């Protein structure tokens, strides 16, 4: 599948990669340059491969409070929250951001590879609730504007920054299938750890907005950035990648996102999650290596035994050192604990860090 912006990427000589069935830009010229542009200035990303599912109706709040470990009905209109879908065993199926548009009106953004599965999951669980669930993913494009100068770019283009985990609407020319009105949604969210927004817009508006943003960021040493930089940026900040850092095998406590569990109601997976919490023995941490570049699947060792596994690894463009994310035995999870990471049969020294490796 191609996003509406495919031809724009091709014009920029993007190197494409297949990601969950989508032909997405992996990079344009260099992952490291794009990464640093976002950390120092600003960058834009086509994230139209992400899903968009609306939940509307009288029981929308009650239904979503049942679907998530997070009490999403605590959101006010115009606020959004990071959370995850759990299965009956309390394990994370997918992480997502849930947006509250009104009293009985929400939407959420699942990952590209899990949108169909999640759509079925919520639909299958909606029996008995007065809700209408619609998967509008194919009608929606998304562009992320990220970096310390993102707010300046927004202002130049006549937009305002909505605030962290808040969102607002701007008048648009095309009907937005999420809101049903001629609107663009500007959300104070992202996947880079930098200040920024995500534009959630009707497909018809995507090329025009991309071109405007590209022109504005180019005046500031900003760059369009691909999935390569998106991955290295999120790794430095310890953000989970669905399907890699968890895949229905970890609960929110293990994944170091215990803050999403704040729902005293009866949500899916609650019972097992309470039991697991007491027995969990591994936890998600970051690792900084002295040398070597860790990769998914590398073993983490200490005291001559295996204590964990790397789930994501790269070289950090900011630190210029190998960094990893992964799960280790809680006994070794304290910051600065020395461990070894085995990369292609050679042990490399590493220290444990919080998942947010780059402050």
């Amino acid at each position, binding site marked *: 599948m191609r996003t509406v912006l495919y031809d724009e990427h091709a014009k920029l000589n993007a190197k494409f990669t297949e990601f969950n069935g989508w032909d997405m830009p992996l990079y344009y010229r*260099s*992952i490291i340059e794009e990464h640093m542009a976002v950390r120092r200035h600003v960058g834009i990303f086509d994230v139209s491969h992400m899903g968009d599912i609306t939940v509307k109706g009288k029981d929308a709040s009650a239904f979503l409070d049942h679907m998530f470990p997070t009490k999403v009905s605590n959101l006010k209109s115009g606020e959004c929250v990071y959370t995850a879908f759990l299965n009956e065993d309390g394990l994370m199926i997918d992480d997502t951001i849930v947006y509250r548009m009104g009293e009985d009106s929400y939407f959420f953004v699942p990952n590209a590879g899990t949108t169909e599965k999640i759509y079925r999951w919520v639909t299958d669980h909606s029996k008995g609730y007065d809700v209408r669930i619609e998967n509008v993913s194919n009608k929606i494009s998304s562009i992320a504007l990220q970096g310390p100068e993102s707010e300046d770019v927004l202002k130049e283009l006549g937009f305002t920054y909505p605030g962290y985990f808040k969102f607002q609407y701007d008048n648009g020319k095309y009907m937005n299938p999420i809101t049903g009105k001629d609107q663009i949604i500007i959300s104070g969210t992202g996947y880079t750890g930098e200040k920024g927004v995500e534009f959630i817009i009707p497909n018809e508006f995507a090329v025009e907005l991309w071109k405007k943003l590209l022109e504005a960021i180019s005046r500031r040493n900003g760059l369009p950035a691909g999935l*390569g930089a998106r991955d290295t940026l999120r790794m430095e900040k310890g953000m989970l990648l669905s399907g890699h850092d968890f895949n229905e095998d970890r609960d929110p406590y293990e994944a170091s996102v215990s803050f999403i569990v704040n729902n005293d109601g009866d949500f899916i997976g609650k019972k097992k999650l309470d039991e697991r919490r007491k027995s969990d023995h591994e936890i998600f941490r970051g690792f900084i290596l002295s040398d070597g*570049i860790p990769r998914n699947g590398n073993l983490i060792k200490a005291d001559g035994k295996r204590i964990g596994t790397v789930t994501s690894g790269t070289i950090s463009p900011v630190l210029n050192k190998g960094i990893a994310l992964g799960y280790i035995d809680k006994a070794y999870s304290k910051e600065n604990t020395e461990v070894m990471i085995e990369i292609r049969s050679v042990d490399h020294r590493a220290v444990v860090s919080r998942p947010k490796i780059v402050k």
Partner: protein
Amino acid sequence: MTEVPEGLNYTKTHEWYKKDGKTATIGITDYAQSQMTDIVYVDLPKVGDKKKAGDVLLTIESVKSAEDVYSPITGTVTAVNDEVVKHPESINKDPYGSWLVKMTIESEGEHLSASEYRKLIQ
């Protein structure tokens, strides 16, 4: 878009080599570097190492992955390019200028001409 210069020999595993009498100068192709993304580390063999065609010759690491580079020929390593160790990104910028290893040629493995290699990566 991807460069495949004439006059070089290519392998199915995306190495190039240039013959100069009994010496081969070896590197990776433009296609290979573009697939790998930003190259950040090169682990070269030692001068004197003997390799058979198809053996792992060296390893290149990028932001995204670690990839083995295979020996296109059977022979002995006579020189390694320390410049690419200091500046791994030079392989991205100039894959045919950034040679990795020189070897004496005992025998060549299976190899492709420029036009055959172009077809392979299309």
